[in-house]
């Protein structure tokens, strides 16, 4: 084995860049709704709360193929919303990289919500009450107290979502197929290489690459979390002691 083994082919680079693009957009897309739903589930009681909770978590327990197929039924060119989008705006989501973003967003959403919800739950409600007693509107309290204190958990959720998106396979291939340069992300490329004769070397290269990216994401997550905790101060860990 010589060094040229590590040089990626244009198709492999394309898969890598596409994966990165899909994962970044997926993380951006679920960021705000994820925090909003997490806040709703953590702080509010309303009719249909457990239903919302279940629906959000569904992709976590279903075989990924199921959400993928449902997305196809909904957003495919013959789907309920897809048909309307096509007719009104001329937009077709299925079999595009945007569809891949949506597929991985649906799959990563529960991870984001779980992590953010836990973090928001752990913020001392006494601090929020104190902020309100100082004249802050509940919305301001959320942005100045709750959100900054929950940030480590939210960041963890975002990194988890990013990683989940990088690894997304089942929903993506069902919803948007495996089109080179459009929807063939790293996992799909690896799968494709394992299916063609002589593709093993390329598959191994991408496997190693995936592992490096995953490790990197975990290390960045750890670093960010530690910095956030340092910023908040050790009080977070000593709740209740004055």
């Amino acid at each position, binding site marked *: 084995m010589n060094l040229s083994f590590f040089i990626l082919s244009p198709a492999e680079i394309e898969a890598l860049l596409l994966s990165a693009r899909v994962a970044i957009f997926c993380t951006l897309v679920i960021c705000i709704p994820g925090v909003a739903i997490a806040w709703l589930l953590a702080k509010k009681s309303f009719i249909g709360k457990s239903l919302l909770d279940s629906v959000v978590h569904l992709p976590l327990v279903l075989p990924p193929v199921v959400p993928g197929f449902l997305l196809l039924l909904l957003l495919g060119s013959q789907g309920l919303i897809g048909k309307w989008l096509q007719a009104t705006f001329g937009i077709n989501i299925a079999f595009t990289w945007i569809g891949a973003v949506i597929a991985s967003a649906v799959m990563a959403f529960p991870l984001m919500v779980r992590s953010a919800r836990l973090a928001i739950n752990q913020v*001392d409600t*006494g*601090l929020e*009450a*104190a*902020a*309100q*007693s*100082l*004249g*802050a*509107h*509940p919305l*301001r309290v959320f942005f*100045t*107290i709750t959100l*900054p*204190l929950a940030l480590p958990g939210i960041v963890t959720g975002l990194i988890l979502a990013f990683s989940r998106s990088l690894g997304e396979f089942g929903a993506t291939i069902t919803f948007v197929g495996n089109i080179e340069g459009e929807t063939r992300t790293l996992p799909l490329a690896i799968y494709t290489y394992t299916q063609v004769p002589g593709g093993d070397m390329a598959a191994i290269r991408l496997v190693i690459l995936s592992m490096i990216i995953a490790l990197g994401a975990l290390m960045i997550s750890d670093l960010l979390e530690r910095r956030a905790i340092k*910023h*908040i*101060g*050790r*009080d*977070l860990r*000593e709740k*209740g*002691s*004055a």
Partner: protein
Amino acid sequence: MLDFNLQRTQGNFALNIKSTLDTPVVGLFGPSGAGKSTLLGMIAGLVKPHSGHLILDGETLFDSQRGIDIPLHQRRIGVVFQDSRLFPHLNIRDNLNYGFNLLATKDRRFSFVQIVELLEIGHLLLQKPHQISGGEKQRVSLGRALLTSPRLLLLDEPLASLDVRLKHQILPFLRRVKDEINIPMVYVSHAIDEILYLTSQIVMIEQGKLLAQGHFHQIIHQDNLQNMAYSLGLENVISATIASHDKVYASTLLTQGKQAIVIPQIAAEAGTQITISIPASSVALSLSHLDNVTIQNQLQGFVTEIKQVGYRVLVMVDIGESRITAEVTTKALEMLNIAVGSSVYCLLKAQAIRAHGFIAS
């Protein structure tokens, strides 16, 4: 002026208190679980009453019948919590500014510098809450609430989680706030000494009910407070006047009617009227004046009543203008042959006498 009539039921605990608070500083006193914090929470808007009304300076903040419930952030009532609740991610300056910055300039009664200097927290401004001591946290918490120029300041056991030494450091700051800043305060505590250091206007509650309200000296002798007075060692609460100070022996001489009482030195001018107390269990009786004894206070009087309360025998002695209760054993009573009408000397150890409103040095 705060006028309220509030009810709330929680499990087996029912709170139902009606009162009007019209003195600048009121001490809300009661044993743990009496409902002090719940009442304070309802005034602040942290806890929702089930029924009743709450009116502050003519503005209705809560009225269950009229459907009024002004939210917490619009009440302009400052709260200092037992656990200080400083925002851990903000430094002390930003903590202090949190409410201050939300306030229109015309509504600001104090400047930032004024409060920082009053509470001596200038050196802490760039620190984070976890870097400062418990006592400093409470001063910052107090400053943060004061900077919002509240119409009413509620202090919920602000010293309860501090040790004695720190308490004694913070109490003068609270007094300073009371004296220099004209904001009505409700001070909640289960430590009567803390309350009496700040005010003698007391609201006493027990098991969710108002027990008594008024000047401490006047209500403490009420019949329904006798059990509480006993548990607090407040059977003997006496008004006295400072006659002179003895700097050599670090003591203060008081006069009470024609009696003289010596107590450890306190910082107040001669002529000042003060309130002192001594637990009945710290009062001994003697049939004659004792010469070879360290006890300096020997007050002559006549036994007016002897009563058995549970296992305790209480002897009431009229010492002229007031009455002293001594707790003795039945055996001692029989040995000395003490009966109603006997002439006795009440022996009060100077160190056992508490002067209310002063920090013991």
